[in-house]
């Protein structure tokens, strides 16, 4: 009886406090708002170009108003020539979008600068570095993206996993070096993806958070994977008294790398959509080295066991297949905010994986950073850096 009364009282006071807060805010909005001076200066106009689709003879541009005031696109010029356009006849409200169709005979492979002239004379520019016909999302396109994803995601990872028999012969010190190498590789990838995520997010206009989206994605992914790990861990203690920390670690690494590859696939798809498609085959050597080491990282914890082939294949898919999904999303959505968020998820996943691996770096003397692991980490960082140089060569 007493307990219920106390609870009721607590509820009532909570409701009362909420009402009071609401009333205060309302009063502030009605009265306090009027005491503020009118906002001076011209309207703040911001438009983010979320997607450009190049159709022969036309350029379709999807813009989003990321500023506080409505924006009216009055005219558009492309490479300093006014163009006829349809769409966007009405002012675009905050966070609203409009699709503009520009009547312009663009040429394959040429750069274009779109200039949106607003009703107040402001010019909002968007650059198309290389024009190429935007792929249409048909069956052929999806199968192409799946093929690219398989090619850049699954195959190198599985190739790397084939080194498992070799790993079994190199002893615990060798494994620690290898795990250190993995940590180094992953750390470099995390830094690289963070920088790219921030760059991508800044092209989105910032209304949805800009670089904060990368951080949000990273933290959420980290928390989700930690929760998954705790869940798997608690189940293990009940179901598998022998302990299968090796396979658990491999799964976590595969998931982390998989989320990273999602970000990679996204970059591929987005670049494909805007037509950045010209490079020599020499670069692929470096690429294979990079993603092959991801396969090594997955199997590194499995040297003590003999997992069935299907399990290994599953790990390979877990790590590599998200590249396919990423490529599909990247090519068909091509949205800066989403890309930044997904890149952030990759970063968070990598951070989680590094923490997963860390205990295995311990040597006999319980040291995290033995000379062997330090060498491994440094080698991993340098490998990524050097293969990165191969890319620009």
């Amino acid at each position, binding site marked *: 009886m007493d307990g219920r009364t106390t609870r009721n009282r607590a509820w009532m006071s909570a409701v009362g406090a909420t009402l009071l807060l609401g009333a205060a805010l309302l009063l502030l909005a009605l009265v306090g708002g009027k005491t503020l001076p009118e906002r001076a200066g011209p309207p703040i106009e911001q438009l983010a170009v979320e997607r450009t689709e190049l159709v022969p003879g036309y350029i379709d541009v999807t813009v989003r108003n990321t500023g506080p005031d409505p924006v009216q696109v009055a005219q558009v010029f492309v490479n300093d020539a006014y163009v006829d356009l349809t769409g966007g006849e009405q002012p675009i409200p905050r966070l609203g979008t409009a699709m503009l169709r520009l009547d312009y005979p663009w040429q394959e492979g040429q750069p274009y600068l779109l200039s949106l002239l607003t009703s107040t004379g402001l010019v909002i520019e968007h650059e198309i570095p290389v024009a190429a016909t935007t*792929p249409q999302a048909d069956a052929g396109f999806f199968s192409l993206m799946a093929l690219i994803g398989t090619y850049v995601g699954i195959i190198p990872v599985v190739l790397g996993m084939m080194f498992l028999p070799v790993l079994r012969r190199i002893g615990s010190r060798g494994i620690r070096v290898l795990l250190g190498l993995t940590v180094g590789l992953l750390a470099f990838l995390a830094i690289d993806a963070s920088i790219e995520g921030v760059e991508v997010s800044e092209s989105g206009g910032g209304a949805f958070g800009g670089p904060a989206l990368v951080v949000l994605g990273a933290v959420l992914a980290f928390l989700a994977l930690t929760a998954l790990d705790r869940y798997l861990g608690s189940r293990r203690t009940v179901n598998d008294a022998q302990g299968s920390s090796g396979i658990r670690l491999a799964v976590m690494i595969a998931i982390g790398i998989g989320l990273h590859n999602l970000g990679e696939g996204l970059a591929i798809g987005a670049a494909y959509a805007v037509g*950045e498609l010209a490079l020599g085959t020499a670069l692929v050597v470096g690429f294979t080295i990079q993603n092959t080491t991801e396969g090594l990282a997955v199997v590194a914890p499995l040297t003590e066991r003999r997992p069935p082939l299907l399990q290994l294949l599953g790990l390979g898919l877990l790590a590599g297949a998200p590249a396919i999904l990423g490529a599909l999303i990247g090519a068909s959505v091509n949205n800066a905010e989403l890309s930044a968020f997904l890149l952030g998820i990759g970063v968070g996943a990598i951070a989680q994986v590094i923490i997963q691996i860390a205990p295995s770096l311990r040597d006999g003397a319980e040291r995290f950073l033995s000379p062997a692991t330090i060498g491994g980490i440094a080698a991993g960082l340098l490998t990524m850096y050097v293969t990165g140089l191969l890319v620009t060569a």
Partner: protein
Amino acid sequence: MAESRRQFLLGSALLGTAGAAALGARAASAAPSAAPPATETGGVHSGGHGGGVAGPTFRKGAVVDHAANGFDPTALLRDFDYGRVSRLPDGRVLREWVVAAADLDLEIAPGVRYPAWTFNGRIPGPTLRCQEGDLLRVQFVNTSAHPHTMHFHGIHPAEMDGIPDTGPGVIPSGGSFVYEFDAQPFGVHLYHCHVGPLAEHIARGLYGTFIVDPPAPRPPADEMVMVMHGYNTTFDGEGNQLYAVNGIPFHYMHEPVRVKRGELVRIYLVNALEYDPINTFHLHGNFFDYYPTGTRLEPSEYTDTIMQAQGQRGICEVRFPYPGRYMFHAHKTEFAELGWMGFFEVTD
């Protein structure tokens, strides 16, 4: 690093079968979507120019509200203001004008507003016309919120030059002054505000044409004035977003300048462009006599393209032997495609 990595990934995407598939998919996807939708060309000005390969244009069907602006470039073309004429005791002609500066929000392209500074509510300002030897009195009234002057090209005393710290100096908001000087030399000149920052005061719209006719009039002709200018709508002083003759970009594409076949056409051409050093005038299907500054009665060249730096001007005289539409535009094609182009419509 990020960029290189992305390209790196793509390089692999083009390998072998993936590359072949990519090319195949792109070729296939390009075909069905190629057909453009029918674009409506309605609206008041159904001149039908522009769009896609037919050249630059504003949104089709969209027009500037000339009535709201208070001036129409077609009317400006042949609008010569001879002032209020009277005789002085010694027999000389006295011409008097009232020119008021005002701040106006003008629609300079369909849907684009521009906070303009104007002479007599229009861009360009009124074409003041007189004869050599007249005594001119221009009463300048500054109703703008900003200080301005009227600075005339020509020959006059220093105190009538319309610049700061000389004669009346800057005419403040609400102030007025009568500029008085003799009309000389004959030719086509310009006037503009001369208050700092100078580029902005001119670019906002404070310029106009000042024509001094020679003592013996030029041969009769269909006369018109064309002031080449631009709008820097972002006010960054870096080039212009819009280029025009007589106020509104592309206007004479929609409403061609109508002239008669075989008749002498005389164009008083003035370059009042800011932020770009040089402007040009090119006429299609014809050649014209060009009189630089109009201070000599003999043409200096027979051409279809001339160039004028900022503040330069001249007279173009032309006859059209054939009927039809003849384009004229800046041969700096960037300016043309950003609005500085139009048509002559030649009829019998």
